């Protein structure tokens, strides 16, 4: 299944995840060298197809590809002209004719990477699709936790915020439960999917209960520009109830780590002092993002299959 690309954590087996993480830890060593480049993907072409703007993720994929010596091409068509299914398929066929070795796709509609993957010979890596999944973010979160805690199995991971609209939350829930962690979610009722327990998590209404004994606390970004006013009365109220600060963090274990997929709305999801805290686990997430994406590209790029046939 890895041969077909990386579309969702939901599709992965635990062994696949371990293989990716193991590879990523080796890739991290390459990033510590003076010459941060290996010739592994020389002569390969990777297309970054970002229908939704994302400087951070795109840059991370671009650096990852370049450190493996691949030729990386960024392609950011305006999403508005590509909302019809036909034009997405046309785009896919056009891309296929350029014979890439891997295509990285972000789109604001769930399922588009899968649709394009079905038309392409090259493996597709989902860099975030709508409110569906963001698999590389979840994998780099796992990597960061393994580094901090030495394991995933048996840890308690609390995810706070807009669970319903967050692809990071969904991918993290799959990733951490598959690796044997207990996952808890907390947030306003308007941001909690109905029957979220079906995903194998426990849901809580208050931070106090959700954080009790937590090893890892993951604050999600609130999409202020889109959601404020619609799903909670005010930013101040959200921050008072679900914003993480030192006082609330005391409910978690003493050595709990605080993570955030970035960019942080300071004073909303995290208080200023937590956002600045040393050691900076949040910046480790960014650092690990490059190594993790190198691992995914190494494992997938260039592994072609005929369209319509199983790899």
């Amino acid at each position, binding site marked *: 299944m890895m*041969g077909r690309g990386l579309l969702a954590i939901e599709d992965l087996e635990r062994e696949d995840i*371990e293989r990716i*993480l*193991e*590879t990523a*830890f*080796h*890739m*991290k*060593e*390459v990033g510590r*060298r*003076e*010459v941060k*480049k*290996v*010739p*592994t993907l020389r002569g390969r072409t990777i297309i970054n197809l970002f229908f939704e703007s994302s400087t951070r993720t795109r840059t991370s994929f671009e650096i990852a590809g370049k450190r*493996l010596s691949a030729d990386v091409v960024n392609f950011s068509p305006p999403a508005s002209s590509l909302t019809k299914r036909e034009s997405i398929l046309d785009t896919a066929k056009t891309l296929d004719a350029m014979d890439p070795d891997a295509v990285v796709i972000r789109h604001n509609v769930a399922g588009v990477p899968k649709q394009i993957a079905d038309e392409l010979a090259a493996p597709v890596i989902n860099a975030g699709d709508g409110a569906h999944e963001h698999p590389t973010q979840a994998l780099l979160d796992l990597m960061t936790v*393994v*580094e901090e805690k*030495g*394991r995933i199995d048996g840890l308690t991971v609390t995810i706070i915020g807009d669970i319903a609209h967050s692809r990071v939350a969904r991918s993290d829930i799959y990733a951490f439960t598959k690796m044997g962690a207990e996952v808890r979610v907390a947030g306003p009722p308007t941001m909690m999917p109905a029957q979220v327990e079906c995903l194998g998590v426990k849901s809580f209404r208050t931070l106090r209960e959700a954080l009790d004994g937590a090893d890892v606390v993951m604050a999600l970004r609130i999409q202020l520009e889109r959601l404020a006013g619609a799903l909670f009365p005010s930013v101040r109220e959200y921050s008072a109830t679900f914003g993480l600060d030192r006082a609330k963090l005391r409910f978690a274990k003493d050595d709990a780590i605080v993570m955030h997929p970035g960019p942080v709305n300071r004073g909303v999801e995290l208080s200023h002092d937590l956002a600045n805290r040393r050691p900076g686990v949040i910046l480790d997430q960014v650092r690990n993002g490059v190594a993790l994406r190198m691992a995914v590209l*190494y*494992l997938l790029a*260039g*592994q*072609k*299959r005929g369209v319509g046939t199983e*790899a």
Partner: protein
Amino acid sequence: MFPPGFEVPAAPFKSVPRGGERLQVASDPPVQIRPPTGASSEPPSAGVAASVVLDDLAIQRALMRIAHEIVERNDELDRLYLVGIPNGGVPLARQIALNLREIAGVDVTLGVLDTTLYRDDRVTSGIRPRLRHTEMPSAVDGRLVILVDDVASTGRTVRAAMDALMDFGRPRAVQVVALVDRGHRELPIKIDYVGKNIPTQRTDHVELRTGPAGGDMEVVLMQSRGAPS
């Protein structure tokens, strides 16, 4: 004398085989990957005869002799930097370092260099080769680097190792140790210190096996049989 964390895998995962596991030959690709041109198409699984070609004592003697040769051939022993190629080259490099300390009183720098990302094998389907540990504790500039591998054959691993090494700096000179040289060179690569030359068929497989804690080593030659000779 060993760099801190030398024996600890970089990944807190089960990435680097621990002592007691059978170490796969870290050098040239197992012959199954690229069947020799014009040879019989007999699959290697048709029946394999395994024989020990070097036991632990013979290996220890060879490593001691190699250490003496290194001292004999080089002046600037304080510039020595031994680099083991995983997996097999790593315990061998460690032993040679111990021998050098014993006979010449020098503490050499010890590194580990994985060549997987520098290999020229084009993988277009199937699983990518697993990466292994790399740990180069200090700069290689101006150093006398000795690459240590368990089995030398086509020379492709040594080429990859030299490419990898150059990314870490500019060594003054590079030499190569191989515990076993089984021939079949495909590149103009010379092995400077050979433990033992073992004539083999291309379809054979030569493997260094390591006991618990890296001790009790043996080199095993596996010959496919079944094809009428």
